[in-house]
């Protein structure tokens, strides 16, 4: 494998020395492009009691292409599907090489606090969300208690 680009080394160092509040990202020792991520649910959201596991992978072309990020913890959210895939513009068409691992993780955390059922990935969840928001929020809270780690 080619040596790790300086940018990835710098980003990793800063993630460790100056972590994003509520987010922990640790690279695998045997693959420094693969990160285990722990993300606290944002306060005043149905996810606030939980800590969610994600995986983040930096493809060969990073930063010309976005990191690949996926929730490993089951989560009830209109923009996150059953496989943990995330519907977020900055991970797709709105990626820019000036964005970083930390800014992407912050965007994902912000998405937890601001679900967008009009641009869904998980269709059924989005339908529930639009039909009965308070019920959907209650389900999200239950799933958080059931599947996420406690804060």
């Amino acid at each position: 494998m080619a040596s790790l680009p300086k940018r990835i080394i710098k980003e990793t160092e800063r993630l460790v020395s100056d972590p994003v509040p509520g987010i922990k990202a640790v690279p695998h020792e045997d693959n420094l492009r693969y990160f285990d991520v722990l993300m606290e649910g944002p306060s005043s959201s149905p996810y606030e009691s939980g800590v969610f596991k994600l995986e983040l992978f930096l493809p060969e072309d990073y930063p010309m292409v976005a990191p690949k990020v996926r929730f490993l913890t089951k989560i009830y959210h209109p923009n996150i599907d059953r496989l943990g895939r995330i519907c977020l513009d900055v991970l797709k068409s709105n990626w820019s090489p000036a964005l970083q691992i930390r800014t992407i993780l912050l965007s994902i955390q912000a998405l937890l606090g601001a679900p967008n059922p009009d641009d869904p990935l998980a269709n059924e969840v989005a339908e529930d969300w639009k039909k009965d928001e308070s019920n959907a929020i209650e389900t999200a809270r239950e799933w958080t208690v059931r599947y996420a780690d406690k804060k």
Partner: protein
Amino acid sequence: MSNYNDEHGIGNSQTATPARGGVGHASQFLNLVSPEHLSRTPAGDSESQLDLGLENGGEISHQIAQQLLSAVSEGGLEFRTDLDDNEMFKSPQKGMDQAYFDSLERINKKKIRPGQTCPICASEFLEDPYPLLVRLPCHKNHVFDLECATSWLKEHNTCPICRTELDKPKKAVAQPDSEEDEDMAFFG
């Protein structure tokens, strides 16, 4: 420090160059217009010849290579060709073209603050004794290594920092049609 392609493991060892930007960057163009590269165009392959803008492949390609060589040795990088479209600019629909990269404002390293880094590769500009830097027209602080900016803009039309669509203002100012004629005249 190594160049963008090295750092990101893209490109290949043939075109890998010792330093970020500068002559190293130019030599990639020279590799691509080397006689071996062009001579694979068979005489009957009119499409390739059209792309290259060549009437009779080999001979003119040598001339162009010579022009590029002398431009580089004089320190100028006025590549007025789109010879490399097929090799280097895989999706021209969405990205910017070579003429656009040529037109970008070059920034002298004297204008760079110590510690200032390229937003794309995160290397300090001044680590390279001969940095080849460009400023995008959207903002005075939107400075990048030419190589990094090119890697992004050949497939996208937006500033990495502010997402300004860089082909919009250009269209308003310049007339793409007349520019194209000029390029053809260069080859003709």
